[in-house]
């Protein structure tokens, strides 16, 4: 039933309904209302499917607009009944948690009180007719072209009559909605998609007509009359439950929206769009849910009637927005540019009147939202101060994004608000948000606080400080103070360590609230201090001096939530302190913490654990103190089975225990829990194993005595053997860590461990086999240290036998284990011998599974590197061919391992055969394959010395195939990159080839050649090759005017490379020709080269600067003009 509170995402649509008791409850009403929806025949499933609007309300994807309390009346009651349970599930303490998309109940105004707060969804609507619904119940139905009057901050729960004007729309005419034919645009995304599906399925399954049957069945068949006894079933019950066929039912319907009968007229294809009139053929497809916003585009304006200027403008905007929202990439870009350029002409009003309702639409998809946000972003820049009157409206729409569950939505929300505050200025922003600060609704205050925090980070914290100070001292209402402090909290979360310069100011602002008369204000103040301390860590303790006393007094005075918040603040402040103070304050607070060890409250437990961790990790706390005061109650209260059940408790407990052991050494901790490895609860065993594993990983086993060692190994092997759960990584890691850290001490246990592994390798379950193989990879080095070579060889043979494994995941692990064994035992002593192992691996290389590929190529590469001589050259060539296929792999690690393996193989069997194979592969179509091949060629050149390869590839350049030639150039480029200064011996041999390539008509050709030149030049500065590079520069230079960015970048890179090789003076001389060229295009490129030269070798250029460049004519007086040299630097002419 958490579903009642939790946001649903679209995937729960179908599944969630079945188990939902509310739906059953409404089944009865569904019938009554089926009359209504039958009238809207096109909607398909009739009453049971789409049913009454309230059902729709539940089915619809919950989006951010109906975040809290927006359930329909029925669900609201259920939710209230279940409030107790729900609250337990929710985190009440983490209102600062960014990832927590939901609003925390923690500071939820009056919500926590005994009487359920009347929120306006369970009040009888105030409107005249019972049919009247508030607009929040409906999908927002906004007439295009006018902003909804609901532009006030959306109030998620009404506090009183004063707010009634926002949600209720007696005049808007939406009250009539449920009776009339249903507008498809009021349906949710999911139901529309479902409709499309259904329509499609039904079109495929519709009964065959006689004509169709005639067409496919040859002549000579006749229609047999039905038997005499046949009576069609006519019982009314069956008719009711028969699948309705909306495709037929809806045929005659002339609703607003029609399923197109064929592809004609529908731009997007069958069954998905609307029938689009001819005059908007150039527009993208219109989805049914777009109707309410873009419906006006469908109306053709009558002949002879001119549109008014405003109408024309609105239509223009709507067209552009539609293209941005639904159009192709190109349409989108174009329209976005138009909207940006014309933003000031269109004006802020008309633009936002259309964008904002669109953005509030519940059917908006993530991608569409992103695009619209982009539109707003761009036009904000353009509109600048014109945006001011719309600030509040924009905020109303954007603020909910700040608490969206989707991370990117939050980021986009922040970006818009930040740009908005830059455009509108602080005063406008404050004026717009000021009223919401003491709003009775916690939701509004929460979003407002977040928006203010974004403002502060955009405009600077100091600018907002005076305002914050005033708000935090507000005498009018506690809500204002609460929000003010919350803003501070959000600021520190948002900007992180950037609060440091303002830390003192912010602490001073919120400090008085620690003794506020309102409990919520005290709580949020403590949380804000915690956030500030967290952001400032490890600096800034002096700013917190003034709050230490109230905090430490507070923990003695408070209980419950306030205490938890205070403890949290203390937990974050203690790590900032000097050792001496930390010790003192830890002792002060530890009394309270130990008292709270026994708390039954889960949240309190988490906080206590966290604070203990923070306290003990500080320097000043003595191990002896921890051992005596903290450990006994700690183990007594926390190391119990119940803690393993909750994921977050589990994590926190393990972290804290590891931290404690860092202080007191591992023996004290491991001794206490080692025996629990044999506990009967598996979850608990796993928690113990994880803690033990991490502790031993950090501290090793040197302190652990023989007795404890035995208990430990015994326990961990028991836990390993007894595990049944799917999640096996924890146990694997724990066993692996313990065994590896025992090292030589593990020798007595190894036979037992290997026995377990062998037994599990034979298990029926794939997971267990995989885990066993993974464990071999972990313990293989230990086997070597213990000199258990026989055992290793045995394992090698066993693994060899399992190479026929079917499950790819397991096979991958087995290959990994084999690799580990080969690595430790060495190529020459491996059993089975390499010459038997490798042929067995060749077919496995063909396996397309990523894990198998990665492990097999690693193993093969290893063998090629270390033990190539055990395998005949013919086998290696066969492997080469298999490897070519591997170059197609998606994973980069696999491709990299493959090209490296080519290098090893070439080294082993000589480059010529491998090179021939690779050069042949340059002819393939697939680009990725070719690129990898060029890299492989370069690696072969590197490992077998370039002279073995360069003649071959230069010869290949003669092949009249652009791909091959390009591949050759690319290989040269990679090769020169890899071989560095070795390249100096080959410059003169490749210059003719590069000359030719740099004069090619194909610009990609020139680009690749340029990057080859660049890499070549970067490898050989100061080696006396300047002549060749000046020559190549003459070929590169004309290409700096290329417009295509990649080509241009390659040319610039080549020029830069040559600058390194020949010195900046030469480049400067080239530049001087064009810096003041009459043609702007020339000047642009020359200045660009000049700038990059200047930036990289400013000082070196001084020696090359020209003299006597430029004169200025100055009037001397009396009309006389005297020519005066601008550059006069006598110091340069000084001689001794």
């Amino acid at each position, binding site marked *: 039933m958490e579903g009642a509170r939790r946001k649903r995402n679209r995937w729960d649509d179908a599944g969630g309904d079945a188990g939902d008791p509310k739906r059953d409850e409404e089944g009865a009403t569904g019938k009554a209302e089926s009359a209504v929806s039958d009238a809207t025949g096109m909607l398909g499933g009739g009453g049971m499917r789409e049913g009454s609007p309230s059902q729709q309300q539940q089915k619809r994807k919950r989006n951010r607009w109906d975040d809290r309390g927006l359930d329909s009346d029925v669900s609201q009651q259920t939710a209230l009944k279940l409030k107790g349970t729900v609250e337990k599930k929710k985190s009440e303490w983490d209102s600062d948690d960014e990832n927590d998309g939901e609003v925390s109940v923690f500071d939820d105004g009056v919500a926590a009180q005994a009487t359920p707060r009347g929120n306006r969804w369970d009040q009888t609507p105030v409107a005249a007719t019972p049919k009247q619904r508030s607009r929040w119940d409906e999908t927002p139905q906004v007439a295009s072209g006018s902003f909804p009057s609901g532009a006030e901050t959306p109030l998620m729960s009404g506090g009183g009559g004063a707010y009634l004007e926002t949600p209720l729309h007696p005049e808007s005419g939406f009250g009539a909605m449920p009776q009339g034919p249903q507008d498809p645009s009021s349906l949710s995304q999911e139901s529309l998609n479902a409709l499309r599906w259904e329509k499609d399925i039904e079109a495929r399954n519709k009964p065959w007509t006689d004509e169709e049957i005639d067409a496919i069945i040859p002549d000579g068949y006749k229609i047999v009359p039905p038997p005499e006894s046949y009576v069609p079933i006519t019982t009314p019950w069956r008719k009711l439950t028969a699948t309705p066929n909306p495709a037929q039912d809806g045929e005659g319907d002339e609703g607003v929206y029609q399923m197109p009968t064929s592809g004609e007229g529908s731009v997007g294809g069958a069954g998905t769009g609307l029938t689009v009139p001819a005059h908007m053929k150039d527009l993208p497809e219109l989805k049914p849910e777009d109707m309410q916003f873009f419906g006006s585009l469908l109306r053709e304006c009558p002949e002879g009637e001119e549109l008014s200027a405003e109408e024309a403008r609105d239509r223009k905007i709507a067209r552009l927005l539609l293209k941005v929202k639904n159009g192709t990439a190109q349409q989108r*870009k174009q329209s976005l*540019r138009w909207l*940006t*350029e014309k933003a000031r002409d269109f004006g802020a009003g008309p633009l936002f009147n259309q964008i904002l309702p669109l953005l509030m639409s519940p059917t908006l998809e993530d991608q569409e939202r992103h695009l619209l946000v982009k539109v707003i972003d761009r036009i904000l820049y353009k509109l600048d101060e014109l945006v001011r009157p719309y600030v509040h409206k924009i905020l109303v729409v954007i603020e909910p994004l700040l608490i969206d569950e989707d991370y990117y939505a939050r980021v986009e929300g922040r970006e818009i608000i930040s740009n908005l505050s830059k455009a509108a200025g602080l005063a406008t922003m404050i004026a717009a948000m000021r009223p919401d600060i003491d709003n009775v609704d916690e939701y509004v205050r929460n979003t407002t606080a977040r928006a203010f925090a974004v403002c502060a980070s955009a405009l600077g914290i100091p600018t907002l400080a005076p305002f914050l100070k005033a708000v935090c001292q507000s005498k009018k209402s506690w809500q204002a103070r609460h929000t003010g402090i919350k803003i501070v909290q959000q600021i520190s979360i948002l900007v992180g360590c950037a609060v440091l310069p303002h830390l003192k100011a912010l602490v001073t602002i919120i400090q008085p609230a620690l003794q506020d008369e309102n409990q919520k204000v005290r709580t949020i103040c403590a949380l804000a201090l915690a956030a500030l301390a967290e952001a400032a860590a490890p600096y800034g303790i002096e700013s917190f001096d003034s709050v230490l006393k109230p905090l430490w007094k507070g923990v003695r005075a408070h209980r419950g939530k306030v205490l938890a918040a205070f403890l949290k603040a203390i937990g974050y402040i203690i790590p900032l302190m000097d050792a001496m103070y930390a010790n003192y304050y830890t002792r002060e607070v530890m009394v309270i913490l130990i008292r709270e060890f026994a708390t039954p409250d889960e949240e309190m437990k988490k906080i206590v654990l966290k604070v203990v961790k923070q306290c003990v990790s500080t320097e000043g706390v003595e191990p002896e103190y921890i051992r005596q005061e903290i450990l006994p109650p700690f183990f007594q209260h926390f190391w119990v089975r119940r803690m393993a059940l909750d994921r977050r408790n589990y994590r926190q407990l393990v972290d804290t225990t590891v931290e404690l052991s860092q202080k007191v050494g591992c023996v004290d901790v491991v001794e206490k829990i080692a025996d629990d490895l044999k506990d009967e609860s598996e979850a608990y065993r796993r928690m113990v194993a994880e803690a033990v594993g991490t502790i031993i990983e950090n501290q090793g086993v040197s302190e652990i005595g023989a007795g404890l060692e035995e208990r430990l190994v015994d326990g961990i092997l028991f836990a390993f053997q007894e595990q049944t759960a799917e999640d096996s990584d924890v146990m694997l890691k724990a066993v692996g860590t313990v065994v590896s850290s025992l090292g030589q001490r593990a020798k007595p246990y190894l036979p037992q461990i290997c026995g377990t592994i062998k037994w599990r390798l034979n298990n029926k379950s794939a997971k267990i086999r995989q885990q066993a193989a993974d464990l071999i990879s972990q313990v293989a080095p230990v086997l070597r240290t213990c000199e258990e070579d026989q055992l290793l060889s045995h394992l090698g043979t066993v693994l060899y036998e399992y190479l026929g494994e079917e499950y790819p995941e397991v096979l991958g692990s087995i290959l990994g284990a084999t690799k580990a064994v080969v690595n430790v035992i060495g190529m020459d002593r491996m059993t089975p011998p390499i010459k038997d192992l490798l042929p067995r691996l060749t077919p496995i290389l063909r396996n397309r599974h990523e894990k198998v590929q990665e492990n097999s190529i690693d193993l093969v590469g290893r063998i090629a590197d270390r033990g190539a001589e055990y395998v005949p050259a013919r086998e290696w060539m066969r492997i080469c061919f298999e490897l070519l296929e591997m170059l197609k792999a998606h994973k980069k690690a696999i491709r990299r391992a493959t090209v490296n393996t080519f290098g090893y193989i070439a080294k082993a069997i000589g480059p010529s055969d491998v090179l021939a194979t690779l050069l042949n592969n340059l002819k393939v179509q697939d680009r990725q394959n070719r690129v990898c091949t060029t890299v492989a060629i370069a690696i072969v050149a590197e490992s077998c010395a370039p002279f073995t390869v360069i003649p071959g590839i230069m010869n290949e350049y003669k092949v009249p195939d652009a791909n091959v030639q390009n591949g050759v150039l690319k290989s040269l480029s990679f090769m020169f990159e890899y071989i560095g200064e070795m390249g100096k011996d080959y410059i003169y041999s490749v210059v003719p080839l590069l000359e030719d390539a740099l004069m090619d008509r194909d610009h990609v050709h020139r680009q690749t050649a340029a990057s080859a030149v660049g890499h070549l030049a970067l490898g050989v500065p100061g080696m006396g090759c300047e002549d060749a590079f000046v020559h190549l520069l003459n070929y590169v230079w004309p290409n700096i005017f290329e*417009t295509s*960015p990649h080509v241009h970048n390659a040319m610039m890179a080549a020029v830069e490379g040559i600058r390194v090789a020949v010195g900046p003076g030469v480049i400067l001389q080239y530049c001087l020709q064009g*810096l*003041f060229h009459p043609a*702007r295009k020339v*000047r*642009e490129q020359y*200045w660009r080269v*000049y*700038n990059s030269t*200047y*930036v990289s070798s*400013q*000082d070196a*250029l*001084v020696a090359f*600067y020209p003299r006597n*460049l*430029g004169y*200025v*004519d*100055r009037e001397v007086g009396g009309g006389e003009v005297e020519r*005066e040299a*601008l*550059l006069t*630097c006598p*110091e*340069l002419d*000084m*001689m*001794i």
Partner: protein
Amino acid sequence: MASTSDRLLVNSQLEHLQARYVGTGHPDLHRYDWLSNIQRDTYASLVGHHNMLQYVALCENESVGRTKYKLLNKMFLPCGNPPERED
């Protein structure tokens, strides 16, 4: 440099570059400004390399400190007053 955004990007990059390196230029730079930069760089280099500074001081028969001071002063309006701009 096809679309507006790209052009904006290039411009902002150039501004950024110019903010970090005063001596960099752009297509609309006047010869006078460029020459001033060159001149300043030259003086800066003379001041920055102590051996060069000593050489100049020796030639001028001045103390190193005073030469340095003189050179630094020269960096203000190194090419005289700016010419009258046409625009």
